[in-house]
């Protein structure tokens, strides 16, 4: 395996770890707001790392920018969607969980 291939693989692996963390957060975190944190941050970082890892293998500049574009679109979508859902949750007066309460 060449050096770029190794670097690419390490990045892909790191991305998968953050996806795992995101899923873990989705299952373990106590309320909808904290789960949205997990979704918006860990998963987007994971996708970013996977895109970065695939950039090493991309055949040309156009493909590389296309991959980056996919990441940017996913960022915009999840940032907006998590705001809209958090806002709606607050309008439905869902109280945020406080430390010390039962998880």
């Amino acid at each position, binding site marked *: 395996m060449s050096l770029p291939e190794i670097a690419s693989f390490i990045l892909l692996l790191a991305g998968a770890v953050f996806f795992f963390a995101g899923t873990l957060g989705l299952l373990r975190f106590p309320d909808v707001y904290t789960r949205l944190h997990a979704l918006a941050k860990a998963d987007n970082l994971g996708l970013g790392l996977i895109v970065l890892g695939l950039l090493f293998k991309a055949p040309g500049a156009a493909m590389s920018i296309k991959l980056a574009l996919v990441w940017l*679109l996913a960022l*915009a*979508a999840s940032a*907006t969607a998590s*705001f*809209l859902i958090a*806002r709606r949750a607050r309008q439905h007066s869902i109280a945020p969980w406080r430390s010390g309460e039962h998880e």
Partner: protein
Amino acid sequence: MLAAAGLALALGHAILQLPQAAVSLPTQVAGNMGQSGVEHPVTAVLLNFRGYDTLLEVAVLLLAFFGVMALSQTQSMCPAEPAHALLQALARLLAPLMVLVAGYLLWIGAYAPGGAFQAGAVLAAAGVMLRLAGLLPAWAQPGRLLRTGLVAGLLVFVVVALIALGQGVLLQYPSSAAGTLILLIETGLALSIGLTLSGLYLCSMETRA
């Protein structure tokens, strides 16, 4: 429940027992690709070899749309609360991108996966997005322009078919002009599929009292 399980078992058995097909469709398609005017086999099948399927499909779409429209008019409408500025900003950013991507899918359809259906679906999504952000009015009564757009695909298809009929068989294009004709038809199709699909949503959601 038991009957469903029995059905699954019987069908599964039938599938596993199925003999190899006598005629190999992939070879036939590959053999005729030269005269189809496009390089992507799925597009060739959709618009050239079996064009009448696609023609009838657009007709079905229009019928469904008229059905939804007829149902939505009998009900009262009330405006929803205005969308948040953030959602509006996202829609303003994404809708032009969706149009661009739809154009891309339309073009790439001649060479690689993509085509009028996918382009139409993405266009429809742009309509849905704009409606959700409150940037697009509801479609109570489609105006003349809208109606023309809706039937554009069908119209272009029929016109091209009639011209071709003058020279031979229904929906068999002369292979020299097939590429251009298919692009023309696909543009009309994408527009009218996009309008119809977003219309299905735009009309059906305005039914709350």
